[in-house]
């Protein structure tokens, strides 16, 4: 038995003969799984919310000014990097997570956003941190009969700034050879004029994760320690980039070489840091 949401991964596996489920249960229309709600605890996203719907939340309604984006930037950027419009219209965030491909583009963002997943079965529900959800390529802690019900991004991580980058073989419809997500929070400095803190304030807290550099999306704790509590000047960023390179465990596969992964992860990390440390508007 398999649960079916958007089907963009499952249908491919069935078409290739990798899976032959005798029963498919379509959960994509279940109302409770399709809500996006902002509450005191944070932002709760139903597992069957499609990638396109997630991206829609950041678009302005016609004739209205853009609403403050409640979905953090790194998750939006990760979502936007997935496949193609066709895939995004059907595919769900839950599906991307439960498929647990190491190159999945919502995985690293949810790790850095300290996401937690509510899992539900007829035995009850439990909450698992994003970091603990993934066991290996295509393997998660989900037990038979258990579904991912919703994803919570805690309020603490709705503040601060985040960004995501990926790279693939080509510009369009590209599977990530590598992706990187960062969330951080800087101290508000006395002389900052509204808006963001810019590059000179110390980093209060930072989370870094990379995808497709290990069997699971990898939290890069050692690289984080380079930056946590420090002022992110260029030489420190370079040192952190080197730490990122050392901490990841990339392999060579049909998508690209280990050497490229090691090099380009550092580059993507620096790009992400540049974006995150820039003054960001409203």
């Amino acid at each position, binding site marked *: 038995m398999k649960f079916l949401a958007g089907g963009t991964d499952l249908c491919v596996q069935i078409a290739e*003969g990798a899976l032959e489920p005798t029963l498919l249960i379509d959960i994509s229309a279940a109302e409770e799984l399709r809500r996006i709600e902002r509450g005191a605890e944070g932002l709760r996203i139903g597992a069957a919310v499609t990638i396109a719907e997630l991206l829609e939340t950041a678009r302005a309604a016609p004739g209205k000014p853009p609403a403050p984006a409640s979905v953090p930037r790194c998750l939006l950027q990760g979502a936007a990097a997935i496949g193609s419009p066709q895939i995004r219209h059907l595919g769900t965030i839950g599906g991307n997570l439960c498929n647990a491909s190491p190159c999945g583009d919502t995985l690293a963002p949810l790790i850095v956003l300290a996401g937690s997943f509510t899992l539900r079965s007829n035995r009850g529900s439990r909450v698992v941190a994003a970091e603990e959800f993934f066991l290996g390529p295509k393997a998660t802690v989900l037990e038979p009969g258990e579904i991912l019900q919703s994803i919570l991004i805690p309020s603490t991580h709705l503040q601060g700034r985040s960004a995501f980058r990926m*790279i693939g*073989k*080509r*510009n*369009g*419809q*590209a*599977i990530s050879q590598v992706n990187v997500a960062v969330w951080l929070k800087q101290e508000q400095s006395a002389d900052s004029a509204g808006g963001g803190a810019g590059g000179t304030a110390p980093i209060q807290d930072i989370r870094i994760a990379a995808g497709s550099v290990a069997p699971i999306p990898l939290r890069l704790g050692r690289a984080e320690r380079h930056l946590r509590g420090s002022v992110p000047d260029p030489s420190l960023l370079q040192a952190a980039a080197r730490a990122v390179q050392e901490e990841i465990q990339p392999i060579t596969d*049909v*998508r*690209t*070489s280990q*050497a*490229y992964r090691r*090099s*380009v992860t550092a*580059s*993507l990390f*620096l*790009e992400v840091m540049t974006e995150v440390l820039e003054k960001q508007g409203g």
Partner: protein
Amino acid sequence: MNGEKLKLVGRGVAKVDGAELVTGRAKFAGDLRFPGMLYAAARRAGVAAGKIRSIDGSAASVLPGVRAVLTAGDIPGPNIIGILPPFDQPVLASEEVRYEGESLALVVAESREAARRAAAAVRVDIESWEPILDVDAALAEGCRKIHPQGNVTFSKRLIKGDVEKGFADAEVVVENTYHTSFQEHAYLEPETVVAVPGGDGRVTVYASCQSPFHIRGHIAANLNLPASRVKVIQAYTGGSFGGKDDVATEIGCLAAVAAVKLQAPVMIAHQRGESMVGSNLRHAARIHYRTGSRRDGTIVAREAKIYLDGGAYASESPFVTMKALIHAGGPYHVPNVQVECTAVYTNKTYCGAFRGFGVPQVTFASESQIDELAAKLGMDPLELRRKNALRAGQENATGQVFEQSVGLVQTIERVADQAADRRDPVRRAGADRSDAAEGRWLHGRGCACLLQGISNGAEGIDVVGASVQASQDGSVLVGVGLTDMGQGSRTVFAQIAAEVLGVTMDRITVRQVDTDSVHDSGPTVASRSTTVGGMAVYKAAGEVRSSLVKMASLMLKCEEKQVLLQDNFAVLASCAPRADNAEVRIALQEVCTAAYWTGFPLMHLAFSRAPDAQFDHETHQGNIYIAYNYGTHLMDVRIDTLTGAVEVLRHLAAHDLGRAINPLGVEGQVEGGALIGFGMAHLERIEHEGGRIQNANFADYAVPSIKDRLPTETIIVEDPNPTGPYGAKGVGEPPVAGTAAAFANAVAAATGIRFTRLPIRREDLLAALQGRNRGTAAESTPWQ
């Protein structure tokens, strides 16, 4: 032809078959439905090499929906196909597996699903052999023979002048070895056929293909039937680029055998994975090249030794070998040229025709050499090319002289002018963002010159037959033995016929190609449709025109030379353009009706026969091509040193194509061919491991998406070709070679590193740039 005012030729008219394509009504082979139609799927070897011990279809044959499991013994004829005799490829293998996609059995069932399931259930026992994976292994002493005659498929030389003497005189020499990889056609429509047995003992095969007569011949042979009992109809074909004919022949034979045996229509439609594994690829090449010149840049000698990895079967290897040989010298006037080209068998997917046909591979090598020479001489790369460029009246590498239609220098000048014009820069959205980071971006400009022989050249007789038929209502039917697979040949034929007959485009129909109704015109390849095909249409239309003119002159009571045909009217020339009364103009409808009743013939079949190639087969010196297309490409790139990503900021593609019959179509050919060349140079690489393709899908084989497209600007140069209709030459293939070579040179200019392997992917760029920064030698990932 020259100096006439033309109404349709030279205009960018819309495709004649466009409406059915944009509405989805056009029937591709996979869209056809016949009552009682069955589906068939092949069981493939799945190992790269081995001895077939047994093939057991018994388990498969009892699965639900299965009607038959066919093996080699079920093929009535010799069970062999190929392009050039002696044919070496079985339709269904029974003795030996030479590549992983080898078809061993065919399952015929009531649904696609049932056929595929059952195909997987066919049991095969293969004693695996160590596969022969590369050219060096295949040529090594004592290596296992993939075919009885050995592992050399074909080997030829071109010898002009005396290269040893040439190099002795040279003051500057550059030398290098280049590699290109296997490229997949990746047409959007996978290979598909439907075979329908007729009650009259004939069998009709609908095929997505380029060469219906070639396919018919092989189907007939393998069915043990006379060719006249087999009819092949080209369905709308969703792209081919040289890639479908081997497979259309293979699955055409299979479907026909099954259809006749079961007396039911049978469809075979490949899935993408098996399309990539089981159909021909572009030859991978290794080219060792040296070029010698005087200090002033005059090239005096060029020598190249080329190895083509042709995979398991010969396919088009002999012709690709010859074409590579003939084009390796480049579009330059060089007195001493020596080229040796050898195609080799290996245990991988066989290689064959792919738009460009050997020319992209050698052009990359040749044009890299020219840039390397320019650097050594301290000369501007475009200037060096202009200095040595072939001009009318000069001998090319095969010693052939063209007195007309050698427009290379014009293409160089047009490109140089446009590249210098800073008021008209090409900018892609987003390309303009300024980046404060110092040294992050590397910019470079590269150019390339090329030539591409038009039509069959040394590959054999070059004939096209076309028929033009005028009906009594003044409408016209055109039939040509060449196929339209998207390149717009139907439209060009319609334009030519309409121009000659003075008929508007909406009154012309170009019929579907079927082997019953058109003349065998050989394959639609080598950029020959417009030139040789168009000429046949021109001639046939001309004969019908003279009947109409004769009739009209009687009706208008004037001399024949005073009759003009235009806009569906026969008009008295002296009164045009203000002709509007019955004494000076008559509707063509009336002329046609009258012509019929008077007994003037209204249908004509004409041949265009290109002069036979005449050359020495040992030295390849002589007259080989009826014409050459010449081109110059220029590309500006920006490389991100942090990721290796390349953005093409500008791409100029100038081609001397003689005459643009349909400029809109020309742009489409140039833009499309350019992107295929870009894929070859930057994005696409078939990955083999142990002889088995690892990336037989569109996720891991990076066909360019819309976000990877080039800002190609097509520059049309017209230096009329006396052997083509209205002076035309073809342009389908040349842009592939030009783009790939220009890209490689642009990257070299930007990075200061000469990449000698294609594709130059992001990861290769990053590795090389970082290797240079660390002071270590740049190594790109190994080519298998």
